[in-house]
């Protein structure tokens, strides 16, 4: 794996840069943009779901908040696109700090339900706060990107930045603390890791990435409605992470590409499209519960990708470096 990785990464980079020429049609490029945005979303969700083992089912809230922040900054204040993206990331990160700060007081199924609840309350506010969001009518007239190609490069830059950021976070003290928590929380606590603080930090970082993705989505669509908070988006992200391989970096990216394109390939099935989609999803989970990337890596007879494999070794040094609270 390690010898192949630079080659694979370079090939992926060349392929990504060539996308506007490989997929010149408007719709094909739109799908590529969505795949890149989903890659960023799945990577950010994977920080909590894959590395910390905390299933946040409210991730769409950050995506939607980022989208609305960018849209409103653009429409109300005339902010340029880059400023809107920054505002979207900042608002989402702040929300991640607050929601994570409250929700990480509980674990397991309770955490799951709590994150869903926060996301749904935010969705209902977007739907009903007519003065600001115009409710279900939505917000038209957001400044679009200069061209689909520039939207692609914005989305690609975000996906690449998220990949690098996740790579760095996973190897940082926070990342090691998250993995230690996932493997055994009482043990992690007993050796002095401030689990709660690391979780809240990860939540804010993860939310920030999702918020920027939302901002790019708002400018790409040039229209924003409460649809952006649909629970279906969260479900799609979770599918991408779990099917691709939680706790790996390649998994969410591969999952994002596959599950963005899959519904398109299934268009021939017409009204049975989502039925077939669900059957494929069930088959992937039942036959590859660890996800595509770890299963494929095991088939190739190689080690699992570095992230989780480092877990048992990472915990003790982290504790040694951080002796007390």
């Amino acid at each position: 794996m390690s010898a192949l990785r630079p080659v694979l990464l370079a090939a992926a980079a060349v392929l990504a840069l060539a996308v506007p020429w490989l997929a010149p049609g408007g719709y094909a490029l739109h799908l590529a943009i969505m795949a890149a945005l989903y890659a960023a979303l799945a990577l950010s969700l994977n920080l909590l779901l894959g590395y910390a083992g905390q299933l946040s089912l409210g991730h769409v809230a950050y995506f939607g908040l980022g989208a609305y922040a960018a849209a409103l900054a653009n429409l109300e204040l005339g902010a340029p696109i880059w400023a809107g993206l920054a505002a979207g990331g900042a608002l989402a990160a702040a929300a991640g700090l607050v929601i994570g700060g409250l929700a990480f007081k509980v674990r397991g199924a309770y955490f799951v339900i709590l994150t869903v609840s926060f996301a749904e309350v935010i969705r209902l506010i977007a739907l009903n706060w007519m003065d600001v969001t115009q409710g279900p009518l939505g917000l038209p007239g957001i400044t679009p990107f200069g061209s689909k190609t520039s939207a692609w490069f914005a989305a690609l830059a975000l996906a690449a930045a998220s990949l690098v950021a996740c790579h760095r976070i996973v190897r940082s003290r926070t990342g090691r603390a998250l993995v230690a928590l996932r493997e055994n929380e009482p043990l992690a606590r007993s050796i002095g890791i401030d689990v709660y603080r690391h979780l809240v930090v990860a939540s804010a970082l993860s939310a920030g990435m999702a918020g920027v993705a939302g901002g790019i989505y708002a400018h790409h669509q040039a229209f924003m409605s409460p649809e952006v908070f649909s629970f279906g988006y969260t479900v799609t992200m979770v599918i991408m992470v779990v099917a691709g391989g939680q706790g790996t970096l390649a998994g969410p990216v591969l999952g994002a590409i596959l599950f963005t394109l899959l519904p398109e390939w299934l268009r021939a099935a017409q009204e049975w499209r989502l039925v077939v989609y669900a059957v494929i999803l069930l088959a992937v989970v039942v036959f590859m519960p660890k996800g595509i990337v770890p299963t494929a890596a095991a088939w190739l007879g190689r080690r699992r990708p570095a992230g989780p494999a480092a877990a048992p070794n990472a915990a003790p040094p982290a504790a040694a470096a951080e002796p007390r609270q």
Partner: protein
Amino acid sequence: METLLQHLVNGLMLGGTYALLGIGLTLVFGIMNVVNFAHGEFYAAGAFGTYALLVKAGLPFYPSLAGAVVGGVVLGALVERTVLRPLRAESIETTMLVMIGLWILMQNLELAIWGGIPQSIPNPFSPFPIEVGPILLQPIYVFVFLSAAATIVLVHLGLAHTRWGCAMRATFMDRRTAALMGIPVDRVYTITFALGAGLSAAAGALLGPVFVVYPSMGDLASLKAFSVVIMGGLGNVAGATAAGLTLGVAESLGAGYVSSAYKDAVGFLMIILVLLVRPEGLFGRAGRIG
């Protein structure tokens, strides 16, 4: 004062079915540690089953309802045996994703079979309300409430006084010890999931004739069920009953006095408050998982 009474009664009538939904989910959640996102789909299956038997097959009202509930139980047992049992050793996230897949699958199967147009189920009850003192009661709501209450009492008695009920309670407390005591845990799981699905289908069969029947009707039902489970405490049947009634009343009051637009937000706000203040549920007995 009279409006307040009317809101309370309306809330209780709806709350009965919320309790029914919540009990099914809380059992599956508590005993099997499965977050059943497809729970609302069994509710939709119950409603569509009633529609199929009553409107398409021409059966009378009560046999149609009973048939739909039996269908829900069989469907639940089938799902447990084919999908959940092979994944017993997997994490809660994996089984949850499977339930999400099942949710998409069932909802879109219904859409492919019945189409997206809402259907109504005729019922034999008088549309004219009965006056009881200052309040008005719709006969069908009274029927729905009484049926839900009777079902809840039956489930409670079954759990408290039968051998299988005892086995389910033992499995909830400690699966491994229960297995060591000779309890067939696998069969307990199948029965639990079938019972949960059956209760959800019963709620759907009861409310189908009150409202309209459409493929995505299960989404809202799942959501109510989750609120009820959180408020009542995991695996707590009495808690789920009380929480179901509470949620019904709270929604009715919220819609009446605050804003009907935020009616569905009431459930979420209650979840957030309960989890932050009293994570073991409003009604005692801590049974936390995770």
